[in-house]
């Protein structure tokens, strides 16, 4: 029965399923690493939980849409991904304004700052790729063409 869920599925299904699952997993991993690297101490600037909420919600809806496609659900998913990605991009880009005045990323500790910057930009790229999956999926039909 479980196998039937994956029978005769179009490319869109796999993009949404992979994108959704990876988004959920990656955002949880990011959040856990973020806590570890920054020690959970950055109270005002570190709104990475917003990224977590949007990406988990977007990922979950993407999985639902993969199995049970609804007309506007894919667009809602893309908007949620956009919110998560935007939140994350803002966090990642915040220190770029300090480039000419090389203040660190969030912290005065060079090691932590370096790790945090690497962490944020690595996941930024990953989240952007997953968001692209979701957008491409929306261009694709929900059902595979019937072979005559």
């Amino acid at each position, binding site marked *: 029965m479980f196998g039937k869920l994956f029978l005769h599925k179009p490319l869109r299904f796999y993009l949404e399923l992979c994108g959704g699952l990876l988004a959920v997993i990656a955002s949880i991993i990011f959040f856990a690493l973020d806590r570890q690297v920054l020690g959970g101490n950055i109270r005002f600037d570190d709104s990475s939980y917003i990224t977590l909420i949007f990406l988990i919600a977007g990922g979950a809806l993407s999985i639902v849409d993969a199995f049970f496609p609804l007309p506007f659900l894919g*667009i809602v998913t*893309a908007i949620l991904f956009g919110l998560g990605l935007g939140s994350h991009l803002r966090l990642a880009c915040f220190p770029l*304004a300090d480039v000419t*005045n090389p203040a660190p990323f969030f912290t005065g500790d060079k090691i932590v700052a370096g790790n945090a910057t690497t962490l944020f930009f690595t996941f930024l790229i990953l989240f952007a790729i997953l968001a692209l999956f*979701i957008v491409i999926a929306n261009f694709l039909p929900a059902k595979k063409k019937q072979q005559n």
Partner: protein
Amino acid sequence: MAKSNIFKGVAAALGLVLPVAAYMSVLAFDREGDVNLFLGITAGGPADVGKYKSAYESKDAYRAAEIDYEIRTIEEGSVLLRNENNALPLTKTNITLFGNAALRPNYHGGSGGPSNSGFSLVEALKEDGFSLNQKVLDKIEANGHQAGNKDIAEVDPSIYDPADMAGYKDAAIVVFSRYGGEENDLDLVDNDGVPELSLHEKERQTLEFVKAQGFEKVIVLLNTGYVMETSWIEEYADAALWIAFPGSYGFKGVAKMLHGSLSPSGRLVDLYPTKIESSAAMPNWGGFKFDDLVDLYHSEYLVYAEGIYSGYKYYETRYADLVQGIHNANAAKGSVASLGAWDYAAEVVYPFGYGLSYASFSKTLDSLTWDRASHKVEAKVTVKNTHASASSRHSVPLYVNVPYIENGLEKSAVTLIGYEKTDLLAPGASQTLTITADDYLFASYDASVDNAADPTKKGNYVFDEGDYVFAIGESSHDALNNALAKRGIGGLYDEAGDPTPGNPSLAHLEHLASRDLQSHAKNEVTGQVVSNHFQDVDVNHFIPGAVDYMTRADWNSYPDPVVGLKASDDASGVIRKYMTAFESFYEKPADAPDVSSFKFGQNNGKKFISMANVAYEDDEAWNSFLDQLSLQELAQIPGEKMANEAIESVSYPKNTSCDGPDGLQTAGVLHPSQTLAAASFSHELLKLRGQFLAEDAVYAGISMVYGGGCNMHRTPYSGRNFEYYSEDSNLSYLAGRDQGKAMSEKGLLGAFKHFLGNDQETNRHGVATFMTEQMLREGPARAFEGALTDGGAMANMGSFNRIGVVPTSSCRPLMTDLLRTEWGFKGISITDSSKDAKNYIFTADAITAGTTLFNNDSARSEEVRALLARSRDGYVWQQLRLQAKNFFYSYLRSNIVNGLSEDTVVSNAMEWWKVAIIAIDASLGALLLGALATYGVFLIKEKKKEAK
């Protein structure tokens, strides 16, 4: 592909892009000050109109004058460390450059201000008529990279080929550099595995290569804002010149000095030890953590265990005791280069205040008086240029050797108290200088006595009974020898270890019959009692016996690293309370006024500019003015964003601020580093520095610059030493006073930073900084005092560290009791960039402590609004009004008033880029809605088609 799928995909794409764009818009608006500075959008008044208009007819005219000033600063600030057989100036012009920094010098350290670029050494030398060995330059070009953190980036000396030297052996110029900056102290173990400020193996090999080539002369240029270990200079160089970071045009001056049309006349602002780790502060430099605290910004500490003996004060005081055979000065403790019993000559290469010139000078101390009533010391010194051909300026620092009472107050054996500098003296010419110094600069703070003006309080500046010997000399060490000779002490020697009798004719002795507690029991200007405010900055206050501060009574007390402190050892729990606070520790006082006692949104007809001549003390006028502000406007003020918005109700125009201190970030000329300016020992040059920064500002539309820098060179390893004046707090006092006054007089708010105790970059966020009150007052605080009192600077920028365990910006004893009450400061206190410090510098705490603005942190305004509107805290409201008054009072003394009149209408017009961003976001939103609608239409059509 179905049309519905196309529009669904388009809608999804827009649905993804719109929120991302919106977030980026939020980011841009958050950092609007940075965006505006990047785009060159500033807000100051016109340059050619008003009280603070430019002194020049045009921008070109002022820039030309500014370049002349930059070159003069290099000339007067560069320190000639060695010049054997008149190796400099060079008379022949075919030269070879060595060292990566010859081609890739550092113009600036890694910190705020203009970028690290400028007119290069190579260009400057060619412009001045030198012929350079291009083959060697090409090899350096091909084999090097710019120096960076932990990386001196010296090229591999194997690239140098003896065959390339032919025709260019008139002189070898070897350039070595060190680079550090914000968040970047230099490292005791750098990428080459050695102390960053020591001579590296590649550098030694380069010098060996040069030595073997038979150059007529070997010249070394030290392109560094930091003290380097330089005992090798004697072995390898005929001449050596410290040029610090020379700024945009400084190398033009360097070339002229090498060629002889200019003569260096600077003096060292820091002592150069043989091994830097011999400094008494070094054992407690770097990272230290409470054993039982863990959280970032909430767990680190630093102890100034050296007490008052930082920099030269340690070496010279120990020397004074050594030659007298007292206080175990010859103990091995603290010996690094001495290899056994401590020996001054082994430990020191160049003393504080050392500096040669192409000319030579004789000096006579014509007279010296210490007027106890006016508190002024006045010395007349005649300087004569005895050189046959060279002209030069010559500075004369004045030092004092004060009496030390056994086991009494800690005293440095020699202290700089003033200086003057001659004009350019031609051979045979002479000039009599009058050096005036305030005796406050050599009074000692005794925290244990009752205050003479108010016996209910503890603490008083004192003059102990005994002999006070004032002296001049070629360095602090030479002056000390002259003073010791005046006291009849023998066995003296110079920094090279050669015996010297000293010159008592260059010293003057005054005897004080009894201890004086009256002279400085009160602040001379404000009349406020000067008493203890910082007893809890000493960790022993919380944990008795935790630290043994170094004492002159026994040099075996040379500090060990203070490790293993535990917050739990503080029975009062205060250390833990403040160090672990993640929420505000502000408590509303019981006698807080009721919010109903404050008016807001009134229409009293008073505009900002109309307050220009209203005295600070005129509470009625100021209250009437402040009553006009709405709650929103009052809350808006603290949230600075490299700018402050216009306040329409009182016609306050928008202002722009920027980072410094070696020039205005993005908008100004890169000046030679501040430490080099201080090395000029010239009041005139520091005033010119202030004036030109103000000229930069008025043309750039900037009203506040975050600078100058007044932290101390506690150790040579602090990454920002280049933008602070000196290791000597009195030199910082005097230089800051001169620069601050010039900036204020020309309408630039100089936010002297980082107030205070940010004397290293390592762990600067939230580090608990412990020291005695005597140290705090005579050291880190004194360094700021000149700028913020006599200098009349209208702003200061806080530091990221804690003073004791309380964050400086939240420390009321510092920000109000000392700064505003005792010193009488009436200006703006702005935090350092507080977005990086929100988890320990809390809004209510800082405002009620005396902080005015939160740097680059407009989100604080939201918190203030909440405090006013929801908490209805009358005390916060009262303090906020006080800070608003300080804000307006200060900006009325800035170039923002240029061209402003009662008729001026101000508004918060939106910048073009904000309009553009909003338009883009709105367009994306409209497109998204369109795509959704179209998708819906096609979806319905396709469903209908399917149904048919």
